[in-house]
């Protein structure tokens, strides 16, 4: 039996402070994102209140009384602690639509009729409650965003192809960079920087026209080719770094034991480099996933997810909660991807430096 030294109080305090600090830091980093998430669950009415609710309400309290034009609908406001009138109408459908889309707490027309009957029978005002539909914005987003699912699949596919193109083309150069001494090696290193020095926005349109002329209009592969331009340069650096981290002697051993250079690469270096390459794919993925400018111009029947989101949100003036939901729907795949890729980052930036 091994006796453990009792943990000292100072140590406990120290580690508590440390974790408090780390937690605060994490919360600080995520705070803007938290509000974005929270916003995406708020109803339109909530989203335009001040102060903005930190969390969405789970139900809405209504009151109904007589109004100038018909019936006066009021909604309970938690912050002001009072009912506020919102609608004066005789049209029950309008009232129902309003409750569904603005308050986010739907109430069916027959139920409204019941409440009105109560009101007519002398109870004034009539109070009632409705459950909030928290996913209202997401519902609306996917309802309005036509072909969201095929676009989502297409976007993943384009991101995947971008990864394949930039990792294969960039990876080949990265491998050459890591394993060979050749004329122009340093030039390659700095040209990677130079590609990034030229403002990409200035040549986006001409680049798209080149591709369209080559017959890649409205084809996923065409977009992948555009996105690869941006990501190949960085991939060269990152993959060079990865390959430098794999001892050359492993490959040489394979050659001595009967493998061709290509077999040696395929059977030894490639499987070993795979995790690092997966991480390198992150840059290609994020770039391809989030891009809209070229995608809008270059697609017609096969839009990417970013394009359909853009199309939906273009008109989301007065609808920030919907914009938040759309933005988050777009962010989810990249966040998941980031989660899986994070442990391989040290392979990416280990070797090549300026």
């Amino acid at each position, binding site marked *: 039996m091994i006796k453990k030294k009792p943990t000292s109080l100072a140590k406990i305090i120290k580690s508590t402070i*440390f*974790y408090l600090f*780390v937690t605060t*830091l*994490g919360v600080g*980093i*995520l705070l803007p*994102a938290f*509000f*974005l998430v929270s*916003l995406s669950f708020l109803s339109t009415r909530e989203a*335009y209140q*001040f*102060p*903005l609710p*930190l969390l969405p309400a789970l139900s809405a309290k209504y009151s109904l009384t007589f109004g100038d034009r018909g019936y006066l609908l009021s909604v309970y406001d938690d912050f002001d602690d009072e009912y506020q009138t919102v609608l004066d109408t005789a049209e029950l459908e309008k009232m129902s639509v309003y409750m569904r889309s603005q308050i986010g707490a739907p109430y069916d027309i027959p139920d409204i009729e019941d409440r009105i009957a109560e009101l007519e029978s002398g109870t004034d005002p009539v109070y009632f409650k409705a459950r909030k539909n928290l996913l209202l914005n997401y519902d609306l987003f996917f309802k309005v965003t036509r072909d969201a699912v095929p676009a989502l699949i297409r976007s993943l596919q384009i991101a995947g192809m971008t990864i394949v193109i930039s990792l294969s*083309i960039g990876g*080949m*150069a990265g*491998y*050459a*960079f890591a394993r*060979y001494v*050749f004329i*122009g090696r340093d030039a390659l290193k700095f040209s990677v*920087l130079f590609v*990034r*020095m*030229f*403002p990409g*926005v*200035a*040549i986006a*349109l*001409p*680049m798209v026209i*080149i591709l369209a002329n080559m017959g890649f209009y409205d084809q996923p592969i065409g977009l992948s*080719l*555009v996105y*690869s*331009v941006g990501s*190949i340069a960085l991939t060269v650096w990152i993959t060079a770094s990865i390959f430098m981290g794999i001892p050359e002697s492993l490959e040489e051993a394979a050659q001595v034991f009967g493998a061709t250079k290509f077999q040696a690469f395929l059977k030894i270096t490639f499987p070993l480099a795979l995790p690092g390459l997966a991480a390198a794919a992150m840059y290609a993925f994020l770039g391809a996933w*989030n891009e809209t400018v070229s995608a809008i111009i270059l697609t017609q029947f096969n839009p990417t997810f*970013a394009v359909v*989101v853009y199309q939906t*949100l273009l008109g989301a003036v007065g609808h*920030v909660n919907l*914009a*938040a939901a759309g*933005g988050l729907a*777009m*962010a989810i795949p*990249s966040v998941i991807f*980031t989660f899986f890729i*994070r442990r391989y980052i*040290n*392979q990416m*930036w*280990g070797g090549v430096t*300026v």
Partner: protein
Amino acid sequence: MAVAIGNKSFRNVWSKAIPYLLILPVVVYYALFWVRPVLKTVFESFRDTAGQFTLQNYAMVFSDPDFIPAVRNTAIIVVFSVTLEFLAALFLAILINRKFVGSSFFLFVAMVPMALPAVAVGAMWLTGLTAHGWLNSLLFYLGVSKKIYWLAGSEWALLAIIIIIDAWQVIPSVMIILLAGLQNIPVEAEEAGYVFGGNFITVLRKITIPMLQSTIQTAVILRLISAIQIWLIMVLLMGFNRLPVLVERIVYYHEEVPGLDISFQMASGYTIIVSVIVSIAALLYLKVSGAFGGNQEARQ
């Protein structure tokens, strides 16, 4: 002393060619999709509307009343944001590299901002920075009832806000480069520093950072290049023209007022000027930080 070169067999030529064959696709790819439009832009920047050679486009850019402010704003943003992002990223990287319980999850948390698309980031800050937005709401809940007009301040206040919220999104990408560099430093190097009497700060200054030098150069140079090209977040938050920066000018002439007789000339002029400025800044940084030759000594 020259050594006679023997007969080269096919295999020798082939193996000499391998690296060139490997970089060939990259070269072809860029020649096809990148060099052509770039050359065209360079070419156009020296032509007037009639197609004659001219330097007038550059003269126009230099005499643009927004040019000096754009250069100034860009310079301010670059200096402060690169510094701030580097320090914050280094801090985070060192923290995560301590490998405490949950550090891996914390790394994920710290990487989240870089995964968010522009549309989400735009929605986030627009609803945050407006007078009745979530930042003021948060202050309100914390007991500060005075509203702050975040985006209505002086140019300096705006620059500060831009720098901070840009940093929020960019710090992760700087951090992961530094973190990777830290993880590749042998533990013994730092341990030796402690054994020989260093405290945390001295070890950091005298051992960790010098050993991290080339990683830092990589991170800073990549960040420097993209910081000079900042524009999207500014346009998202306050539209064009409010706080001109260099690349914002390019986009302005490309997308906001493309119909002007001078739009294309201005855009191409600005484009070339930006790439020259970026190149000079990058070379200058590399020179000052000693990437040319300096670290050769360090390696030996």
